[in-house]
């Protein structure tokens, strides 16, 4: 059985001496902080009768003692009988947590652990509680339904705890092959590109030979084979150049066509994959960044395949070709010329990364400067109202100074770096001129050979420089590809069953049965929530913000799956219902209305694309939206959304209601639908809502309790639990949580009245 951690050998021996065998251990867990708050080791062992706290003051010393065959007293073991324990819990703090054991009414901090261990200790506490109550401990108690957060192969934490991808162990070759597999449909294109590249590289190699050996030795040299035929030589050189350019144009065009096509397809794939994913994926931390990076990642791939790969091939061919040609022409001179090359490569390898780092630092400084500009200009009303122009100028000045500093650093660096690089490059030239020139005088080589060498050498530097950063480029490309694949490969957590139950039509009966739900491990948002809603009933969810009201609607819509208990609609577990049936018959009017870029009519008909114009107008009328829409210059064809006409909050809200009316769901969720509106608008929307809720099961969340007047029953939620349930009158009479909430709101309203007067 999985027992969280496996005990070290020494401890097993020590336990045995206490009469506890390994099979007695129900759970075993290792903490990573000692009593003094330093990183250390503390073990907890749980048997069916007691909790053992095993502390080792100096693990290395004790391991050594154990190795020496002395296993007595290695551990300071404290045994707490379970029947003396009132409660075992964990407490989450900042950057760490406690395991708290209450013994005879006195809470005791038995151990501190870093956040990395929080999950494990949460499970341990849960298991220990079960053992304490004498309940049987089962295999599934050792899991919180989440995969292990570390790589089983190397033990490294996954950079994203929710995604089992270890950047260290992931198969880079497989990734590369997978990227290349996108190009599988372009075999003919690839063959053409490679052929053209080879031809181009060959032509490139010939040019220096023509311009050196042939021109100087055979054409310009008295007694040369083609003496005096300058015109033909120049035409030939021009032709070669033209051919080489023609070839590179051709392969660049084929390549551009191919990469653009592949990347466009990839982007569509990624976007459809994202649409398929569950809500949890989107709300999880960091995924926001992941999403916005996707497009940039696809572009990165495109650049790499458009520029990187072809240049890599061309440049490799060029380097090999040039070196071979030089060796063939004169191997001794060639070897001499190549002497400074390793030095050059070393220098470039050393200096270029520093240059990129400086550039990215400057880029970051610029970005933070832009943020200040953006802040001050978008918030100009606030700046002016508080008279803080001077302060903003100072803030700008500070960031600007940083940009200046980094720019200066970059400037200094480049102004030294590039001349030095040039110097190194020239040093190869000096050798050729010096040694080669001497050879020419000696008559060992011709002047043409010397010129050919000089030309070849000049052609070598570009490709060499390219090679110094191709590895980084490749790494970045793999990284981008990896992120893209992650999205492509993420399976939606809320997946439909293979043979789902069809609920067509839905009655609208809702039941929550002992629902426990947490977004993050050990932080339950809903605790054992149960209630039943009859078809057509209107329920108001009441409670402080953060009590778990919106979460309840989230699990009813099955945006998330609950950890314990079940959500039933028409008596069927939502996990068994066809997702399409669920979505088509549950409607939401959220607090923050989102309108897509498009016309008002399109927005109203979002849930039912085939709706007729009459239906759209009827829905708008029911939502009290028709009148204001008609008054707009473009009527129902007014473009709204991100780049469209600005509507007020109330107007958007009414469009959202019209959308819900047309969608005609059996279950309607109103999530603070009227919270951000003024009283006049609210009244209009209340009217609209009244029409909307008819004949539907409605769950309404509202801060202002007065807006829940029409609810059949109210459910009061506090800290994730149902604390009161009943009609308005019943709850008033109870004089409990609801009553106090109402009192508070009345007071608040009275204060506002005073303030307004």
């Amino acid at each position, binding site marked *: 059985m999985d027992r969280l951690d496996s005990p070290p050998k020494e401890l097993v021996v020590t336990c045995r001496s206490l009469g506890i065998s390994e099979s007695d251990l129900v759970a075993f867990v290792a903490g990573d902080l000692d009593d003094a708050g330093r*990183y*250390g080791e503390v073990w907890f062992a749980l048997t069916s009768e007691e909790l053992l706290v095993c502390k080792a003051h100096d693990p290395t010393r004790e391991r050594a003692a154990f190795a020496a065959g002395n296993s007595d007293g290695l551990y300071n073991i404290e045994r707490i009988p379970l029947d003396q324990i009132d409660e075992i819990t964990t407490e989450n703090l900042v950057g760490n947590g406690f395991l708290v054991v209450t013994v005879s009414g006195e809470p005791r901090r038995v151990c501190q652990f870093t956040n990395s261990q929080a999950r494990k200790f949460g499970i341990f506490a849960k298991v220990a509680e079960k053992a304490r109550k004498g309940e049987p401990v089962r295999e599934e108690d050792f899991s919180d339904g989440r995969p292990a957060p570390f790589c089983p192969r190397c033990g490294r934490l996954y*950079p994203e705890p929710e995604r089992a991808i270890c950047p260290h162990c992931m198969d880079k070759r497989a990734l590369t092959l997978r990227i290349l597999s996108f190009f599988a449909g372009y075999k003919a294109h690839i063959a053409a590109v490679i052929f053209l590249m080879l031809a181009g590289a060959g032509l490139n190699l010939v040019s220096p030979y023509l311009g050196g050996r042939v021109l100087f030795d055979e054409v310009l040299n008295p007694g040369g084979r083609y003496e005096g035929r300058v015109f033909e030589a120049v035409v030939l050189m021009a032709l070669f150049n033209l051919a080489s350019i023609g070839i590179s144009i051709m392969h660049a065009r084929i390549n551009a066509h191919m990469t653009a096509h592949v990347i466009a397809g990839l982007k569509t794939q990624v976007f459809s994959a994202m649409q398929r994913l569950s809500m949890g994926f989107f709300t999880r931390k960091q995924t926001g960044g992941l999403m916005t990076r996707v497009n940039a990642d696809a572009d990165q791939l495109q650049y790499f395949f458009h520029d990187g790969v072809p240049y890599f091939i061309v440049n490799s061919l060029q380097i090999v070709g040039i070196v071979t040609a030089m060796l063939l022409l004169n191997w001794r001179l060639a070897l001499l010329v190549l002497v400074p090359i390793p030095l050059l490569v070393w220098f470039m390898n050393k200096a270029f990364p520093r240059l990129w780092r400086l550039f990215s630092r400057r880029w970051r400084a610029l970005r933070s400067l832009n943020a200040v500009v953006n802040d001050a200009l978008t918030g100009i009303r606030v700046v002016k109202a508080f008279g803080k122009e001077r302060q903003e100028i100072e803030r700008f000045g500070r960031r600007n100074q940083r940009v200046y500093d980094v720019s200066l650093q970059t400037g200094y660096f480049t102004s030294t770096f590039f001349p030095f690089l040039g110097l190194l490059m020239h040093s190869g030239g000096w050798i050729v001129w010096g040694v080669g020139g001497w050879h020419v005088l000696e008559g060992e080589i011709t002047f043409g050979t010397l010129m050919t060498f000089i030309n070849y050498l000049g052609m070598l530097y570009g490709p060499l420089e390219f090679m110094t950063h191709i590895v980084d480029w490749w790494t970045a490309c793999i990284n981008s590809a990896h992120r893209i694949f992650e999205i492509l490969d993420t399976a939606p957590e809320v997946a439909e069953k293979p043979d789902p139950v069809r609920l067509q039509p839905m009655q609208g009966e809702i039941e929550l049965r002992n629902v426990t739900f947490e977004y993050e491990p050990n932080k339950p948002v809903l605790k054992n929530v149960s209630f039943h809603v009859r078809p057509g009933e209107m329920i108001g969810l009441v409670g402080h913000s953060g009590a778990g009201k919106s979460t309840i609607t989230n699990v009813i819509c099955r945006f998330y799956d609950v950890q314990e208990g079940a959500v039933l609609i028409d008596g069927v577990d939502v996990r068994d219902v066809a997702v399409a049936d669920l979505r088509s018959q549950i409607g939401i009017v959220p607090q923050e209305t989102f309108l897509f870029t498009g016309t008002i009519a399109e927005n109203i008909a979002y849930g039912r694309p085939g709706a007729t114009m009459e239906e759209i107008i009827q829905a708008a009328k029911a939502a009290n939206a028709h009148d204001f829409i008609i008054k707009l210059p473009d009527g129902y064809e007014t473009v709204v959304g991100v780049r469209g006409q600005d509507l007020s909050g109330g107007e958007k809200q009414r469009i959202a209601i019209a959308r819900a009316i047309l969608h005609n769901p059996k279950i309607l969720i109103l999530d603070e639908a009227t919270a951000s509106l003024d009283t006049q608008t609210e009244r209009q929307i209340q009217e609209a809502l009244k029409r909307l809720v008819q004949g539907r099961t409605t769950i309404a969340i509202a801060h202002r309790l007065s807006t829940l007047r029409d609810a059949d029953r109210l459910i009061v939620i506090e800290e994730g639990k149902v604390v009161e349930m009943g009609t308005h009158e019943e709850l008033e009479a109870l004089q409990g949580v609801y009553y106090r909430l109402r009192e508070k709101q009345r007071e608040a309203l009275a204060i506002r009245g005073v303030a307004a007067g």
Partner: protein
Amino acid sequence: MQQQDQHGLSEYVDIRYLDPATARFSETPGGFVRLVIGEEESYPRVALYRAFPFSFPDRYISVRDMDGNEIGMIKDLNEFDEKTAKLILRELERRYFTPVITQIESIKEEFGYAYWDVRTDAGPRRFTVRDMQSNVILLSPEHVLIIDVDGNRYEIPDYHKLDARSRKYIEDLL
């Protein structure tokens, strides 16, 4: 009327500072903190929060009961006797567990994630940071806060004071 309002408001905004003369903190047998104020008020266990964890770690400390209601604030720990101050500081350091990085052995970046190997005042530690742009935070021109993938926190109060190699690692990040 105006005055009455003012009075009503002050009930909400006035800070109740705990008086060192009457507020007595002590350690429970279980290692937590108990508070007794004067003769009547007694809390078997209190939780302590810092209002300004970075700038004023030992001032403006909110003392709350276990339901999260504020009992009062400690204006400055130095007002209390040494033993009490020590007890409270230890409790605070437990809540805001943030080891101070004293030396950076290495930071290896792989595929956008950084693997740190450091020495801290709580011992050597390896941890993983994702998205260094947003998880390595410059709190002031010299104070650096680092948050790892599990939400563990580490700080460098003044990175200029680190050894040259460690400093270079940080400078390259900022």
